[in-house]
């Protein structure tokens, strides 16, 4: 879609909403207007930078050592003749982190197909098993190595958190993978996995947005993708312009949010001092 059509579309949507609003906005929950406008503004910012990247403009992204190390880790496994272990978290596909973990699995499986390294993906949920199998199958197909793919490389262990941790630990201790990657949503089992991986001498790369587990991964793993770095991994690994533009857009949204926070603090200060009647807290409270 070229710029003209895109701007016409965006203008059309804005005009339609304005007409809808001034016609009395039936069915619209007015108390949530601020959130709606925020979503539209942020989406618009994202789209702007995605389109900017698609047009071929250079967008700078800083290096993330953990992502650079993914290919190194797969290479190390190939040299040592040992498998790569990939753990896509313990939650189901309704969690965005699990989805991001399966996306990264797609990229990692392309590397294992290219280098002819064994990949082992034990999963904790049946739907994740199917999604991960599809992701690996597509990657092996794209790399021209469908013969190397077999469905059992992604296999189900159990839904139960610590039983899963025990199962993965057992795989680590028996098969001694040279590289262990933990990408997804984790809870208390994170340290169990990372410490066992450390004890077998594997190179470990973790990525999660689970705040409580980030310190454990940072302590026990060689590289850790923290929070947004994990969500940006797909852009880094694929180098696709629209994804890189999305990461840039995310950073711009963050700048907008920082600006709004500072502005909000000033407004709040003025309100508490009795200088203005407008209460930013009431305005921003979502009901």
């Amino acid at each position, binding site marked *: 879609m070229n710029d003209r059509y895109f701007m016409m579309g965006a203008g059309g949507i804005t005009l339609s909403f304005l007409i809808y609003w001034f016609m009395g906005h039936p069915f619209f929950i007015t108390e949530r207007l601020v959130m709606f406008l925020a979503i539209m503004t942020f989406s618009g910012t994202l789209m702007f930078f995605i389109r900017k990247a698609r047009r071929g403009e250079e967008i700078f992204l800083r290096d993330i050592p953990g992502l650079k190390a993914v290919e190194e880790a797969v290479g190390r496994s190939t040299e040592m003749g040992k498998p790569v272990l990939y753990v896509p978290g313990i*939650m189901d596909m309704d969690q965005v982190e699990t989805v991001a973990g399966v996306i990264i699995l797609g990229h990692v499986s392309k590397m294992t197909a290219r280098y002819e390294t064994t990949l082992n993906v034990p999963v904790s949920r049946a739907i994740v098993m199917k999604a991960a199998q599809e992701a690996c199958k597509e990657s092996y197909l794209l790399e021209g190595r469908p013969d190397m793919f077999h469905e059992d490389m992604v296999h189900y262990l159990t839904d139960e*958190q*610590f039983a899963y941790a025990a199962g993965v630990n057992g795989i680590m201790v028996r098969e001694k993978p040279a590289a262990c990657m933990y990408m997804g949503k984790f*809870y*208390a089992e994170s340290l169990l996995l990372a410490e066992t991986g450390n*004890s077998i001498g594997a190179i470990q790369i973790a990525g999660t947005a689970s*705040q*409580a587990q980030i310190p454990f991964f940072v302590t026990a793993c060689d590289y850790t993708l923290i929070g947004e770095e994990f969500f940006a991994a797909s852009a880094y690994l694929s180098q696709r312009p629209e994804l890189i533009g999305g990461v840039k857009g995310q950073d711009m949204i963050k700048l907008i949010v920082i600006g709004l926070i500072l502005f909000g603090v000033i407004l709040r200060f003025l309100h508490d001092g009795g200088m203005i009647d407008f209460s930013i807290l009431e305005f921003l409270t979502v*009901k």
Partner: protein
Amino acid sequence: MKYITDLIIKMSSVDRRWIFLVIALAVILPLFFPMGLPIRATPTTQQVYDTIDALPHGSKVLVSCEYGPSTKPEIHPMVLSILRHLFKNKHKVYVTCLWPDGQFLASDALNLVARDEYGLTYGEDYVLLGFRPGNEAVVKGIVSNIRKLYTIDAKGTKVTEIPMMEGVNRFEDFDFLFSASAGYPGTIEWVQYAVDPTNVPMSTGTTSIQVNEVMPYVASGQVQGILAGMPGAAEYEKLIGVPGIGTSGMDAQSIAHLVIVLFIVLGNVGYLIERNRSKKY
């Protein structure tokens, strides 16, 4: 002096199995030889106690149990203490579970406290509504229409036949919520989907590791205090005057923490000595 520094450097890279052995002893010995370290309630624990104590007699309190056997040592003692406090103040207690394991443990807790200790009547003083699958959909369901979600309780009795369910149709019919949470779904989902939209007051008890995630909600006033792990459970036991598993575990936890700190200090002393030596050479 060189002998001592060499020994420290050697100990700073000791096999981790020695560390495991020392930790095991640090935990086991205080359980057999308790020291009776004094327990003082922190402000966040005191806030939970004060909030529950201030509830008018006969309030309808929803207690949600989302923990399993692995986190039982941390959360179960606080659930027992909270139930004791609620029953002592003659509140009506409704128990739900967002985790399937939580139903087993909630049932054990209610049998111990409500049935055996207080001799209360099921269906009139307390009820176990049980587990329903759906994560945050369950929370939303309780907020909008609890009777659509719970047609029967955990024992198979129709909700319409339970006396204390009369007048209880939605989350806003409760006067207070306590969430005993070990992860997802848990405290945060209750805050986001139930407490924030309805302004029903809430307190929570979580595992120590989760306190970080929940603390912003406590700081902003959305959650009235937090019981942080086993220390929080022990503090609450102290406040209600009934020591339990939480209190008995505190000596062991104190010594274990001290041992870990000493190991860290030892490791760093060895690291600094080695760094100085390598600078010299």
